[in-house]
């Protein structure tokens, strides 16, 4: 599966077509947002990809604790590594969008602060790994940490902002995505973009994983 090509082609096709349709397709006409509503095709998929990568990481952490197999631990780290890349892309693009529409790159929004804490939590995961010398201990402790970090991240990003007022859609008195999408033109393009970027993230993650395996094999032979 990891070495098959069809889903990588699918990823490339979906991302590229979402770019074209995202620029040129019809969007709802909204005040303040104007044409920036199109950012929904580019900013939001970053976060979806991040969540999926972190989810993969948790799954492999659980698998590692069950099996003690080193490869599962490697997959867990690489998924977090790529997840953090997407997280930073999401933060940057979000700040650029917020600067224009909300008038401030970092308004005191619970979703923004939550995502900042979640980012630090996952950076701490990588720091924790580097701090531990012994391989098995490192894998075990970081797997347990990872399993705790994931639900906290979900709470920070999805549950707490919905309980208070947030500038993001679906929080406080704000309309949700389905209210904005009055004419159902956004949806097909949006899901194309989301799936395309998720597949791309997984692809980069498997590339890093395979490289690590090659490296390990080489070290074994030496």
């Amino acid at each position, binding site marked *: 599966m990891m*070495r098959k*090509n069809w889903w*990588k*082609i*699918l*990823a*490339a*096709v*979906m*991302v*590229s*077509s*979402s*770019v*074209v*349709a995202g*620029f*040129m*397709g*019809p969007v709802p*006409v*909204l*005040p303040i947002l*104007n*044409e920036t509503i199109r950012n929904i095709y580019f900013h939001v998929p970053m976060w979806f990809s991040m969540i999926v990568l972190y989810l993969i990481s948790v799954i492999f952490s659980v698998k590692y604790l069950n099996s003690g197999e080193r490869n599962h631990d490697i997959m867990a780290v690489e998924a977090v590594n790529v997840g953090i890349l997407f997280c930073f892309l999401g933060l940057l693009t979000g700040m650029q969008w917020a600067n224009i529409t909300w008038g401030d790159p970092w308004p005191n929004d619970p979703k923004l602060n939550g995502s900042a804490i979640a980012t630090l939590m996952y950076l701490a995961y990588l720091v924790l790994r580097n701090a531990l010398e012994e391989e098995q201990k490192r894998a075990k402790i970081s797997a347990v940490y990872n399993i705790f970090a994931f639900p906290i991240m979900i709470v920070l990003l999805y549950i707490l902002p919905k309980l208070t007022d947030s500038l993001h859609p679906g929080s406080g008195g704000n309309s949700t995505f389905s209210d904005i999408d009055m*004419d159902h*033109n956004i949806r*097909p*393009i949006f899901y*194309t973009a989301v799936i395309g970027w998720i597949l*791309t993230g997984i*692809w*980069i993650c498997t*590339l890093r994983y*395979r*490289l690590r*395996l*090659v490296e390990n*094999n*080489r070290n074994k*032979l030496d």
Partner: protein
Amino acid sequence: MYYMKTLMLTFLSIICLLRMAVAQPQMAQIEMATGLRSSGKIWVVVLVVLTLIIGVFLYLFSIDRKIRKLENHK
């Protein structure tokens, strides 16, 4: 070969997605980029971004191939 497949499928799906695009009734008071679009030159930007994206993907495919070679080497 994968490149050709990628390119062909890309253009096919672009056409499919754009077919969903129906002309929307526009509210007059909210400014959208209709003028820019009708002048046709926004397509230049789309082309540039698309080139970047496809370039990155081709690069990923080449890394993929290199790793595959390493894997088969041992």
